[in-house]
């Protein structure tokens, strides 16, 4: 039998975090305050790749590793656009992804926000003006925030999210 009191009173068996990155902690706590105030404690993000080189996806995935562990700030990545507050778009929008990109955005409930992550999503990057892409995400969707970088680091993505939350709070 597990004694309920011992669960509360006994020292917890946990490990130290591998590193404590003050920069991330600071950005993260700021994010948490904004999310608590504006979104009632949590935001749901849907990631949409419209033609990236996969580096941006890797960095967004890294936000979930133990170094960043962004769920503790109230951010979750969700499997369906129907559950999402924020659409995180990576890559220039290719012709082959245009319809899927519009459908994904349309499936999200309002109010909704769009973030472009990476140089290609911001303005088409090196692919701007070529036959296969339409351009940055803003050519197809209403973009609220751009996070440049090739690809942006996880910390830069967090800072971008913080900026979006502040902007959303003012609306």
């Amino acid at each position: 039998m597990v004694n309920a009191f011992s669960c509360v009173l006994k020292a917890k068996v946990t490990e130290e975090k591998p590193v404590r990155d003050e920069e991330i902690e600071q950005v993260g706590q700021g994010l948490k305050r904004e999310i608590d105030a504006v979104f009632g404690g949590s935001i749901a993000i849907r990631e949409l790749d419209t033609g990236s080189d996969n580096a941006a996806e890797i960095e967004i995935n890294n936000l979930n590793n133990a170094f960043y562990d962004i769920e503790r700030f109230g951010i979750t990545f969700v499997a369906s656009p129907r559950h999402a507050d924020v659409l995180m778009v990576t890559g220039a929008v290719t012709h082959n992804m245009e319809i899927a990109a519009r459908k994904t955005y349309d499936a999200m409930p309002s109010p909704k926000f769009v973030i472009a992550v990476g140089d290609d999503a911001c303005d088409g990057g090196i692919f701007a003006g070529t036959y296969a892409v339409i351009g940055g995400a803003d050519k197809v969707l209403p973009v609220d925030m751009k996070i440049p970088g090739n690809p942006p680091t996880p910390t830069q993505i967090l800072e971008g999210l913080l900026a979006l939350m502040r902007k959303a709070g003012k609306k």
Partner: protein
Amino acid sequence: MTPNLRDPADHVNEIIGTILSVDRLVKGCTNEIYLRITEDEFEPVLSLLSTRKFVLIGLFCAEDFMEVPGPNLLYTFEKKGAVLILVREVARSVSSIATVFPSASWFERECRDGFGVEFTGAFDTRRLFLHETYPEGFHPLKKSFRNAPIATKPSIDPADEYPFRKVTGEGVYQVPVGPVHAGIIEPGHFRFSVIGETIFNLEIRMFYKHRGIEKLAEGKTPDDCVRVAEAVSGDESVANATAFCMAVEKISRIQIPDRAWYMRTILLEMERVHSHLGDQAGMLVDVAFPLGASQFSVLREEVFRENEHLSGSRFLRGVVTPGGLSKDIRKERLYELSRFLEQLKKRYKIGLKIVLSTASVIDRFATTGVIRPALLRPLNITGPTARASGGKVDVRVNCPYGIYAEYPPKPSILKDGDVLSRFTVKAAEIMDSIDIIQRLIASIPEGTVMTDTPVTDGYTLTLIESARGENLAFVWIRDGKIERYKVRTASFCNWQAIEHAVQGNIVPDFPVINKSLNLSYAGTDL
């Protein structure tokens, strides 16, 4: 193993010599052999190559190649490190070889979309990288088309929708998945035909991310084009940049300093380590074993941070450049890297032990997603995926480049071809890559990392072993500018293996099978 002192090209001479004059074989800058072939000779040579077990590793088109106007097809074959390229002039239409070399099917569809070359007798003539919204008769890789935005159809008429293969029978139903998937992952469409939970057939549709990489490269200077090579696939940035630079250097007869090759090899192996670590973490996520997954993700994040310290980029971008490296790395920094890898190795072993002694993981991994050895040659399956199915293929061993002849990797070959074998092969390769890097750091020569030799015109084909397997780069420079850059990544070939690997498995095992093959969508879609 005794070193093979024979030039692999001799083997090609011997075989071709049985039906054609060997005087017609032209040696390229990287020891690849070109043979211009007439329509009459094509069939006999092809059946000869097929019986002598050559593998079709690439088929692509180049206009006005070797002074012959119009589209020319370059059929690229490999056997035991020797590369033979048949150059075939395109008459109005050409015969398909997909019934003899199945890996040709995607290549032929690619040539059709890009250049408008029609293949008679092809069993699949659907469009490949140009999806439904692209206009008819549009062939972007033709020289007559100047790269500029084009008008596409705003919507798809139901009659024009992509026709998936029909699988019918009692109790068979379809599960369409994608292009937008549930996870943080690249887009692609999977059409499952299932009976209950069991996958009866899978058809994949890719190229949603077609960004026009090859056309984008044209007209750029080799220095500028490195960025395009890096953008082929983010986690293969070093491999694709190196393959491209190696080609430019071979064409221009540039001998890069030894130190630069040591450094490039360190970066290439670091890329293999972070790619394999991410892959293994993903496989563990997909069998719901977060304890192992989070350990490997932590190690991977540390490798990314180490990459940033080394090069300023977490993906090691912007370092490899034609002629060597754009920056040197201090000796002390390299020693720190060696110490970092030493403790990484220890912690990796602990994590690996936990994973491999967990019954629930082994239960999901073993006998899942088997790739039979018989598929390796016809589909040109490559890299760790092939090595987990008994294939003795590794460009670093079979056709060593840079300094791999002096620092050969330890081949780890398994036979079962299941998810567990692929996981185990990758584990061995991580340890081996760490070992190679540490040995390189211990004996890296001093000196510069850059040569300043002008780039000259010409063409060549290079092969490189990326984390995912053999990547091919064909570079043709004309008037100092890129005339044609063809890149074929390992993923382009290995994607076709997944349709076979999943048959008879249950749908819930699809993610782990997919992850175990570690396929890049970007590297395939270009």
